[in-house]
Structures are given as structure tokens and as C-alpha cells.
């Protein structure tokens, strides 16, 4: 039973981490290797607002998410847009930006275990004999709400539909009057905000360390590959698969093996079914 509960919590956490990456890749086909960096930066920005500037917690979160969205949009607008279409340069550029941000944070004095964000609600509740923090329950709730919101957004609002259109076929979207550059910026801003949201939700469960950036990047990529690069529902499903696999490994093998699960998941997916669970590039084996 505890596996079910911890598994669900872990899976929703993974889904939150991965959705930002999946969104950006699905829409503009640019792998955003700076995803982990955006995650960590939003944690630090929130911390700065909260502890150093003594702004109210909720307000700090909102401000941090807006700032992060702006940062993501700026990264796209000034750097990635110029290398759009050149696969090698795109990959190198986003990797370099991510690395620059993370290492700058590491150098800039944000070292060690002294930076934390408080949980939203103190206390815990017992479900079937297992103690679960309120905060973790909140994570699950907000996670489900985010997924639902994304689904509604992309199916019923104009911008959401435009994003889906671009994800399916950029040229066709251009012909229908959808500004692909603007949409890509929007996608990047959304993806960054999702990274920020997952950061403010998950960081209170631990400390803010730069290593978390790399971990999040690895996990997000693992989830997206297993679910199929470019498919949002696939990412959610894959998050559950990997989330439960991790919890099972922790219970039966020891908690060191969590990262191994991610690595093995990627390798197995690439060997057995390269396009992932719901990959839109199913034509990977069949393309012309």
C-alpha cells in the first residue's frame, strides 16, 4: 500500500518535472537542455524574494514564476531563435546556456545545505496507516490540476490550439497564420513556468542544491524518451512507469539505485521501442 502512495507521489513529481521539457520539444523541436537550470533558478529566485526581501510566500512564488517565464522567453528570443533549424548548433547552444546558468549558480555562493523553502502546509495525515505530509498531498493535487489545465488549455483556447497545431506541422500552421516564432517563445515561456512550478512544489521537500538541476534534467529526459519525445500524454504515462519503478527499486534494492532506473529506462526504450510509448515519430523505423 505504501508503494501505491509513494509511487503516485513520485510519479506526479516526475510528471511535473518532465512536462516542461516535453512541451518545448513537442512544439519547437528544440531540446531544452537548460530545463534543469531553470528549475534551480526559480528555486533561488523564490528564496531570494521570501527570505532576503521578506515578500509573502505566495507572492514570491508568483513573481518567481513570471520571472522564470520571462527568462525562458528571453533565452529563446535572443539565442535559440538564431540557431533554429541547425540541429547541431541548437543542441550545443541550449546545453551551453543550461551549463552556464547552473555553474554560475554554483560559483555565486549558493552552495551547500543552507537554502530551503518552507512547505506550504505543515503537518501530515495518515492514509491506511502510512503517514503522508500535507505538502506531498498538495503536490499530487496540484500536479493533477496542472495536467488537467494543460489539456484544457491546449484543446479549448486559441493559443493552446495554435501550439498544438505547431507541434503537429509547423509549415501548415504558418500557412494558417500562426506566427511560429511567437508560438515558440510562448512555448518556451510556458515550459519554463512549468519548470518553475515544479521547483516551488518539490524543493520544499529538500534543499536547494545545484545538483538538483542535473538530476531534474536527467529525469525529465528519461521520462520524455520513455513516453515518446513530443507526446505530452506519453510523458505523463511514462512518469508513472518510471515513478513506480523507482519506488519499487528503493523498497527492494536500496535508495542508491534510483538513477540507475532512469538510465536503464532510457536504454531499454531505445533498444525495444525507440519512439517511446506514444511517440509521434513512430515513423522512426519507417521513415522515408
Amino acid at each position, binding site marked *: 500500500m505504501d508503494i501505491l502512495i509513494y509511487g503516485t507521489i513520485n510519479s506526479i513529481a516526475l510528471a511535473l518535472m518532465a512536462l516542461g521539457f516535453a512541451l518545448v520539444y513537442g512544439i519547437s523541436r528544440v531540446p531544452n537542455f537548460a530545463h534543469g537550470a531553470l528549475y534551480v533558478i526559480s528555486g533561488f529566485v523564490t528564496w531570494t524574494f521570501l527570505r532576503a526581501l521578506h515578500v509573502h510566500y505566495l507572492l514570491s512564488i508568483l513573481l518567481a514564476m513570471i520571472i522564470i517565464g520571462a527568462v525562458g522567453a528571453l533565452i529563446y528570443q535572443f539565442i535559440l531563435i538564431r540557431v533554429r533549424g541547425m540541429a547541431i548548433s541548437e543542441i550545443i547552444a541550449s*546545453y*551551453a546556456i543550461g551549463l552556464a546558468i547552473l555553474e*554560475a549558480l554554483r*560559483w555565486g555562493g549558493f552552495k551547500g545545505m543552507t537554502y530551503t523553502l518552507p512547505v506550504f502546509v505543515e503537518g501530515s495525515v495518515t492514509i491506511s496507516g502510512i503517514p503522508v505530509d500535507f505538502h506531498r498531498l498538495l503536490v499530487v493535487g496540484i500536479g493533477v490540476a496542472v495536467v488537467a489545465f494543460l489539456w484544457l488549455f491546449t484543446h479549448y483556447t486559441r493559443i493552446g490550439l495554435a501550439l498544438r497545431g505547431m507541434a503537429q506541422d509547423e509549415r501548415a500552421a504558418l500557412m494558417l497564420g500562426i506566427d511560429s516564432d511567437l508560438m515558440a517563445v510562448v512555448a518556451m515561456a510556458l515550459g519554463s513556468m512549468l519548470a518553475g512550478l515544479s521547483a516551488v512544489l518539490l524543493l520544499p521537500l529538500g534543499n536547494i542544491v545545484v545538483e538538483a538541476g542535473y538530476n531534474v534534467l536527467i529525469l525529465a529526459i528519461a521520462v520524455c524518451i520513455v513516453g515518446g519525445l513530443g507526446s505530452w500524454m506519453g510523458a505523463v504515462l511514462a512518469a508513472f512507469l518510471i515513478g513506480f519503478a523507482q519506488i519499487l527499486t528503493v523498497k527492494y534494492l536500496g535508495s542508491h*539505485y534510483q538513477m540507475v532506473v532512469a538510465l536503464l529506462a532510457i536504454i531499454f526504450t531505445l533498444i525495444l521501442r*525507440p519512439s517511446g510509448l506514444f511517440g509521434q515519430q513512430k515513423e522512426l523505423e519507417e521513415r522515408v
Partner: protein
Amino acid sequence: MSLRELSYLTLPRLVLIVGILILPLVMPSMYWQRVISIVCIYSLLALSFDFLAHFVGLVSLGGAFFIGTGGYLAAILNTSFGLPPVLTIPISTLLGAVICTVLLLPCLPLRGVYFAIVTLMYPLVLTRIIEALNVLGGTDGIMGVASFANRWIEQYFVLVMVLVSMFGLRRLVNLDIGLVFRAVKDNDQAVKASGMNITYYKAIAVFIASALGCLGGACLVHIYMWSGISQFALDFSILPIAATVIGGAGTLVGPVLGCFILVPISELLRAFGTLRIVFYCLILVGFIVFRSEGIMVYGQRKYHQFERWVEI
């Protein structure tokens, strides 16, 4: 060919070879001689990156993977099996290349993005695995690795290896099999339609590139007499990329030049800690965004212009 044309062809190569070979002799101190060795190891990585990215179309974001594999193999062969460096280096180069190729095999039939993702991931994940499972010496690493017999062998071995690799790769990309690699980058469907298995040729290219990296790793371990997870560090992943972009991508000489520029700067900046990496990354992004061609490409262009200069 006239003497003028002949000298235009051979002079830069001679200057390069002679210049590199006498470099250790003119260095002011042992510290700087060691820096030259480190430059050479980074050059091997940069050569492998340039070769893979611009002649085969695979972007390798994790040079640290090759260095770490070669390094750990050499350390194990030396400390657990007692083999001397003269044996550990060749064995770990070849064995390391085999291991790296096998580990990268699943992503070879797929599009380039997957290769970038997998090479990015391997150093990060392996670091965490080694830390968590405390194998292979854990965070302390493997100590007590033997060093080279002689200080000068240590210096010149890597130097000569870099020169051999550089000229060897330049030759390779113009051989028939090199043309197949370049064809795989340009249009792999057509290569398939010609009856050739793309995965096989990509695997050969990855083997060559990872052999270079593992060679560098093995030499590194014997120079520092220690092997640890710092070999999977980001330095080894990002500096070759920055060196290639700055030095001129696609020329196979540019990356070496880039290393000669960046590594001493990084040594000077050592006091600033990980700010170095920020520095490389920002320069890298600057070069990419402003589509700078890199020093060597610019140099080649100007050189060819002068070569064809005719007095009227």
C-alpha cells in the same frame, strides 16, 4: 609544382609540427609543461568531437564519458592487475572504445538528438552511480596509479599522439570510408539505398572517436596517478565543444588550436572555481549565435586568398 606552391602547402604544417614539438622545451616551469600535457588530452577530446559532429553528424555532449571510461580502465588494469603503463594505455584505449561503442549502440540507428541526449546523460548518471554504490573507489577514486617511466616520455607521448591523431583524421575523412561517414551525415537514406548498414558505419566512427577519448583518459590517469569521478566532470564535456567552435569547426586543426587557447586561460582562471565553465559556455554561445566561423576557418580562407594572390 613550383617551389612557391610546395612551400605554401608544407610550410604551415611544418610550422605546426615543429612548433608543437618544441613547446615543452621552451616552457618556463614544470607546471606549464604539465599544462601542455593537459592541453593535449583536451585536444584528443576536441578532435573526437569535431570528427563526430562535423563529419558524421553526431553531437557528443559528453566527452567526459570517454575520458572516464579510459581513465578508470587504465587505473584498474594498473592497480588490480599490475600492468605497466606501456600496456595499460593500449589496452584501455581499445577496450574502452569497445565499451563506449557498445553502450552507445542503442541510439545509433536513431536521429541525432538521441545521441546527444545519451552522451549527455552517461557522465552525469555514471557519476551518481559510482557515488551511490561506492564502487570503483567511490568518491575517493583509485589511488596509487603508476606514472610514466620518464618525464620526457610523459610529455612527448601525448604530444605525438595528438599530432598523429590530427593528421590521421584529416587523412581518414578523405579516404573512401571517410566519404561514407560524410555521406551518412548528409543523407543517410541514400546511404541505406546503396545497400550499406548505417548503424555499422556510425559504430565505426564512434569507435574511432571514443578510442581517442579513452587514450586521453588513460594518459590523464597516468599523469595524475589517480583516477576519480572528477574525470566525468563537465570540464571534459564542455571545453572540447568550446575549443572546436572557437578554433574552427570542421577543420580538425581548429579544435587543437582552440584547446591551446582555452586550457591555459582556464588554468589562469582556476582561482575563480566553476566560473571557468560559465566563461566557456558564454563564449560558446556567443560564437554560435553570431555565427562566427572560428579561427581556423577564417585563417584557412585568408591563407587561400594569399596563396592565389597574383601580382598584376
